[in-house]
């Protein structure tokens, strides 16, 4: 029964193919098979959001998906949003506004926030708080996370206006 299956994932624009047991959780396939360690394991019980990735356009807790379900999917993790030399505007703003302390929740938080801003480029503070309600932070008290996301939104919007 522990038959392995062929799994194909496109992660951050790169195709990967590997063998895995269907029951393997997506988070472990990403971290242990593909060495993509941005998404973290916080609770492993679908509550904290540290493992959030974007999968076929949805924010998904990758601890609550079997790798078999993800077979064929396109996935974006924090590694696909920005790099140390070219930070994503959200990363820039988290740095600027102290949107992190220990940083454990940050990859999930920013990956979720990126999707939120894609769907709602001009959120109110309340909409930001509601939109990141699936991501728990033990350190910041959220105030600076919300500030960082709102600031990133206005930066993205001014850049869009300037381009027009």
């Amino acid at each position, binding site marked *: 029964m522990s038959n392995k299956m062929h799994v194909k994932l496109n992660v951050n624009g790169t195709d990967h193919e590997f063998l895995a047991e269907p029951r393997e959780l997506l988070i472990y396939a990403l971290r242990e098979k593909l060495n993509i360690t941005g998404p973290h394991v916080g609770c492993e*019980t679908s509550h904290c959001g540290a493992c959030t990735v974007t999968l076929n356009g949805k*924010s998904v807790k990758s601890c609550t998906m*079997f790798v078999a379900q993800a077979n064929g999917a396109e996935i974006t993790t924090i590694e696909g949003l920005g790099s140390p030399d070219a930070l994503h505007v959200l990363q820039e703003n988290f740095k600027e506004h102290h949107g992190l302390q220990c940083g454990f929740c940050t990859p999930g938080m920013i990956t979720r926030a990126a999707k939120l801003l894609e769907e709602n480029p001009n959120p109110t503070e309340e909409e930001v708080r509601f939109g990141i309600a*699936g991501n728990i932070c033990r350190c910041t008290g959220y105030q600076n996370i919300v500030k960082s996301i709102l600031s990133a939104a206005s930066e993205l919007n001014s850049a869009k206006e300037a381009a027009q």
Partner: protein
Amino acid sequence: MIPAAFEYYRPTSMEGVLALLQEHGDEARVLAGGHSLIPMMKLRMADVPHLIDLQGIAGLSGITIDGGTIRIGTMTTQHDIIGDAALTAAAPIMAEAALQIADPQVRYMGTVGGNVANGDPGNDMPGLMQCLDAHFHLIGPEGERTVAARDFYDSAYMTAREDDEVLTAITFAVPVGGHAYEKQKRKIGDYATAAAAVQISKEGGKVAAASIAMTNLSDTPVWSEAAGAALVGTDCGADAIKAAVAAMLADIDPTEDNRGPVAFKRHVAGIVLGRAIARAWSRA
């Protein structure tokens, strides 16, 4: 948190799903969004040797409104419901309830069909479906049949669905009048301590019809005919609300758990229902 091993299938037709269900009997289960089933498998509270993923089957998601009937495909997610402007115009209680389920990530994955088929008394959609007098469409080896939401739930996790049947859609008439979905929970992402779904229609300043159901206060959702009847013909004032709440409290049967003792749950149920009735009436 590693579930027992299983065989994974992703059939591309309903015939394929039904054949697998017949072949493997109660060793097989379908997987929708997985956000109830996977946590249970990780805890090894559910053992599913044959897991049949429905994601490969075309036509199981989508919302249509036609001739006064709303049809929601089983694989439609809570996120889809919240984003559907036509549904929100026709039946605003759907989005109001969906927004109170879990958190954004869970809502992208959690499906309407999974929520109603699951049979967990904590799920929000079953009570809502009873309030709306929805019908569940099932397909199995004997063909298709329809079961009323009000007849679907026998006890926790026990429903009218046979093991070899698959839910394909839910339907209900476009509701009339005012609505409210009111939920008390300890935090975002928690199941209800108590929740109420209410639809009320008004005629000449009086309640013409009322449908009321509550969630997580019994081992099934509770649609209380008496609670609705207590409002009909009244001006929906304090006395009428009190009578409706009393009728509902006679129909629920909460048990003590980590959300509180029985007395507390009954208290919360009364507050939640009172608020829901007042809000639905204000919109009727």
